[in-house]
């Protein structure tokens, strides 16, 4: 029995529609589950990988501009004794800043590196204690305390990255961001379990340091 071509075509189309609709029906369920727990291993590593990509695709000048902007709003507009208010304020300003960029990819990348900058700002007091901050301010030779603080923070970030590089988790090629993300996530989980540091502070410090370093190399600065 031969089936005519038009009939065959209509059956194929029907099956294709059925399968597509079934897939689409399942997708929200999966998305909902992933959305419910975004901090699971997969979600964390994907986010870190995207952050690395964002650093690779953004100029170093833009990164430093965003950093300066967020630090400025933190100093001027977002001062608060409640950390949650301070956080929300910085996030709102960062969102506004990112929305001013053209194109969804640029905005998405801006969201990632702004997130890193915000967390680094929040983690400053964890990396540099009050006593050390006072010492740095006292010994800043040319009076530029901010530069001295940034330099010291970079040293602290470098220490974390060095420890990561010396660990077993860093056996990746430099361009393999997925592998780096996986290794960094695992390293930070282990490291912060031993030390008094939050996981996101460890990740942000390492991503910022590695991201800006690779960005500088890439653009020849």
């Amino acid at each position, binding site marked *: 029995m031969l089936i005519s071509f038009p009939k065959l075509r209509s059956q194929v189309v029907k099956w294709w529609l059925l399968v597509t609709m079934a897939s689409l029906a399942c997708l929200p369920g999966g998305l909902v589950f992933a959305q419910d727990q975004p*901090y699971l291993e997969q*979600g964390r590593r994907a986010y870190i990988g995207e952050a690395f990509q964002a650093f690779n695709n953004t100029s170093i000048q833009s990164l430093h501009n965003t950093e300066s902007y967020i630090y400025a709003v933190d100093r001027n507009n977002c001062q608060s004794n409640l950390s949650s208010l301070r956080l929300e304020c910085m996030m709102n300003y960062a969102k506004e800043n990112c929305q001013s960029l053209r194109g969804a990819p640029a905005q998405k990348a801006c*969201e990632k590196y702004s997130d890193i900058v915000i967390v680094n700002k929040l983690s400053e007091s964890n990396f540099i204690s009050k006593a050390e901050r006072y010492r740095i301010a006292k010994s800043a030779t040319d009076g530029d305390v901010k530069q001295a603080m940034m330099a010291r923070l970079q040293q602290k970030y470098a220490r974390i990255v060095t420890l990561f590089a010396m660990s077993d988790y860093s056996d990746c090629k430099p361009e393999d961001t997925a592998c780096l993300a996986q290794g960094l996530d695992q390293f930070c989980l282990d490291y912060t379990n031993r030390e008094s540091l939050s996981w996101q502070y460890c990740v942000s410090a390492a991503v910022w340091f590695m991201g800006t370093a690779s960005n500088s190399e890439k653009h020849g600065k």
Partner: protein
Amino acid sequence: MKRVFNSKKGVGVYQSSPVVTRHNAKELHVGTNSLLVVFLLGITLAIAYSLNVFDPIYLKGLDHDLMFAGTFVSVILGVSCYEFWNIGKRSLYSFHFMLSRTLSREMIPLFFVRDYAFAIGHNTVYKQLELPAGLRKLGCISICLLITVITVDNRAFTKVKTLPEVLFESNTDFCPEQSKEELDTTIEPGCELVIRAFQLGYSQDLGSCAPKEIAPEKLSVCDKRRVDEPYFHYASRLLVSAGSKIAAVMSGSEIEKIEKKFALQWQQVENLRDYQLYAMSAAPRASHHIWTNLPAPNSDIHQAFIDVFQPNYCLDTFQNQTNTIKLDNEDERKKGQLLEHVYGQLLFNPKVKRTVGLCKEYQIHWDADREVCDQLAEAPVQVLAEYKVLPEIELVLKRHDIAQAITALDEKLAQLDMVDALGVSDNRVNEGATPASTLKGEENTGTLQKTLIDKSKIAKNKRFRSKEEIVSFSCFMQGQKTASREDMLTLHQDKFKVRTYEFKPSSTLGESQIAMYKNFARVMDREFHYTQLSSRSDLALPVSSAEEADSAAPSNTSTVDQKAYLQNSAYMLARLELLNNIDIFLGNDWVLEREDLLEVYPFHVHLQNYVESFRVEYQQDHGRL
């Protein structure tokens, strides 16, 4: 020809020397002078070589003065030895190597080789081999030089150089000269700005930041030697002073005091001996026991290995604890491992500064029977003996008794000193004057004679702990419901509380960790309560109205909003900051249900706070001697 003294004639006459001409090719005669020089030179060379004296770096590092003085002294000594012992002259004795049958009677044979003999003897007949005189002299000088280099290095030479100063220096201190008034130029904290303003002319004076004058010391009468005092005058003063002291001692009251002190200490001689012995042997100062029906964290073999080969296991383990523990769900010992982790964190982890005691003085008895605490209350001696902990507990209690006895003795000794220092009769002391020394008031003995007893050997803390504080018994049992009770046991006429706490097991790992902290803290200290005021999380703000999840202010403490806030994938890392304000030790069970949040939760923030709060409470009623 040589000149010899003729005693008969009384004059020196020339007498020809015996001619030494005999020489046999198969004989060898060596003068002892040369042999001695060669032998000594060889020995000193060997010694010098073995001590690396010939190392060029060492020789290069020698002081130039040492080199010069050493060489100079060596030459003088070497020549002196050469002349004094007539080493340059023909040897009177020789070593002979000759045919055995040709040995003369004056020769002393040393050993024989076939037909030949080695001998030593007086030699006036044979021609003997000798080093040239110059070489012998050089040899003597070389020997002295080598001895100098071997024995004297830079440090020794420096000591020799400074010897005259040391010898002639007076070994008595002198009275200090009267100090001149000086200004104290140290800058007080907070005065830098004031000083800078003064320097720039903005201020007329420095106020309280001005340099202060140092008041000249009020010297008591100085007994030491004055700078211009003759030595004999000083010596006579010392003699007179010593005589006065002896007279004072022999006057009677001092001896009586010494006798009383001796009698007091003799009564407590066993306690004094034990107190020193326990201090030196680091005997335990506390004994705290916890019984639990949870399985041991390690297998029996591993535990036996630890007991034998790793006596400091608990110190090493708790030194490097992680904030949270990862457990294998399939492991039947996971609950014991969790308890051990919690126990180490709560009591011994040094990351939280105030540790409550020494982990070796705490013991957890695993796989215990649920009725063990009941049995303990009824028959404590048997149960403790069964668990082999009775000797240790008795030792701690005994040490406590000894400490009390020693403290009482110390007070009595201090009373005797106080009587002597104040010149007051015994009646005043008997009327109940406050003793000079207690365990707390160490400063009171500052002006009095120091006692023999080191209080740190009695008790580490200023507050003398009771027996109940240094010995404790607890039962921590897993059961079907949560319950707690307290019983009493009597051990050698001392009463102790026995706390029993039963807890229900939790279902998830996250819940079980927090639950274990709370339950174990309760069994260790019933009075401990962790509240919002103890927590590092911000205070809760009132909920105003429902807001969108995306722009929900995290200050809004509605759980639904917080959950939604942490489900948003935008600014994922920054949002985790919210967890710093969510203390899972205060409830917030929704965090424990989120497996993803537990992986990134900042345990260190709230855990350290929880542990510190617990330890502050715990140490009020528990500790060590």
